[in-house]
């Protein structure tokens, strides 16, 4: 017990003193996940809206696929990206394995289906309401997508935040393609795994606390967003 107590004390000390290594790891984590989620949003939002709006062969299959991919295991994504980026892989020449871009790639693959699937649901509901108006006004397909994404912006922000929660908390993908290299690709989750197995609890606990606070902050933001944008009763 005293180990854990002492570990906590040291962990709080690390956070309080803004230890350089500690801060570096936290910032790298945020950087990787933020860029990954931004990429996922750029692809996932229009993709989800398109699946919601347009009738094309295999549309239902794509919808089911997106829902299924929401639960994609991070290690499997990591493994796939690893194979593609490894020296013998199709993109091996890029030399991206064990780098931050590789981690970003892996996390965006993980998050894109989440953003796309949640977007599809949201936009489909809104489309039921908007469809006749948009056709009556002669909106072009791209205009329909843009209008629906904009008018669903608050719900979609929630979807993007959910994606961020997933990205920042996963360990399997970034571990495999990043390699957990000190000062290069080490992020919060991979550090926790490493330091725990080495028995260095303070750093692991400190990062764990940051992750929990981050998760609370994200969910708090989602909650506030819902409250603020609750439909007024006309």
């Amino acid at each position: 017990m005293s180990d854990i107590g002492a570990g906590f004390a040291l962990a709080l000390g690390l956070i309080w003193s803004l230890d350089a290594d500690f801060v570096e790891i936290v910032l790298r984590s945020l950087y990787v996940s933020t860029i990954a989620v931004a990429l996922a949003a750029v692809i996932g939002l229009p993709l989800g809206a398109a699946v919601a709006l347009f009738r094309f062969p295999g549309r239902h299959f794509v919808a089911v696929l997106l829902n299924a991919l929401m639960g994609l295991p991070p290690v499997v994504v990591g493994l796939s990206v690893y194979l593609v980026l490894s020296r013998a892989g199709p993109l091996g020449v890029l030399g991206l394995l064990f780098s931050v871009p590789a981690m970003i790639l892996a996390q965006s693959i993980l998050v894109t289906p989440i953003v796309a699937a949640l977007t599809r649901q949201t936009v489909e509901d809104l489309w039921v309401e908007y469809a006749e108006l948009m056709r009556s006004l002669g909106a072009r397909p791209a205009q329909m997508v843009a209008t629906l994404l904009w008018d669903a912006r608050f719900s979609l922000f929630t979807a993007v935040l959910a994606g961020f929660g997933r990205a920042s908390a996963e360990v399997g993908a970034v571990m495999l393609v990043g390699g957990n290299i000190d000062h290069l690709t080490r992020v919060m989750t991979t550090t926790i795994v490493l330091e725990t197995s080495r028995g260095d609890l303070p750093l692991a606990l400190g990062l764990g606390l940051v992750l929990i606070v981050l998760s609370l902050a994200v969910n708090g933001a989602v909650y506030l967003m819902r409250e603020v944008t609750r439909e007024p009763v006309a």
Partner: protein
Amino acid sequence: MTAPAHSILPLKVENLSYRANGLVLIDSVSFALERPVRTVILGPNGAGKSLLLRLCHGLIPPSGGQVAWNAPDPARHQAMVFQRPVLLRRGVAANVGFGLRLRGVGRAERRARVAEALALAGLTDLADRPARVLSVGEQQRLALVRAWILRPEILFLDEPTANLDPAATRAVESVIDAIHRAGTGIVLTTQDLHQARRLADQILFLHRGRLIERAPAERFFAGPASLEGAAFIKGDLVW
């Protein structure tokens, strides 16, 4: 309004039919609209009034017959307002200008036309409110000028005052009047005889998917030629 070089009128509806699930909902309806007058499609619930409007506006494809306009690209010169106004999750002014935005009208012209439309609807003071907090009557007026701002030759209105109290109904009807005076033809559905009397230049009386009678409003209300029309006026035609 200056008439476009090629008017989309007359609208010719020929043997128009619509079937769904084995039911004939619109049964070979034919009529023509030559001029931008106020046409009221009158009939009891379930007569197919909304359906006929949607078919004319081109929102749903007919099962048979055709809707023919006089000029190419007729969709651009007509508009429709739905029974329950669809309001975008934006401000009132942004809602009114939405159609112009879709058509790529520049910001300055858009602002001027939105201001004019808001004034016509009596919504100028509410321009910056979120549209969805307006009262139902205000929402309906907003929807009316959002359609009118595109300067349609024909405006389809699907029961524009259903569920409105008398004061709100009067406000909506005065906006409809103003739009008509500005040169737009109105095609409106209602089951409200009083409203039909107030607004109609001509009546299309619809019953069970069939066009029973077409007559100038005065003649129709003086004495319908059809038994169904007479029963409806007396209040005897339930369905």
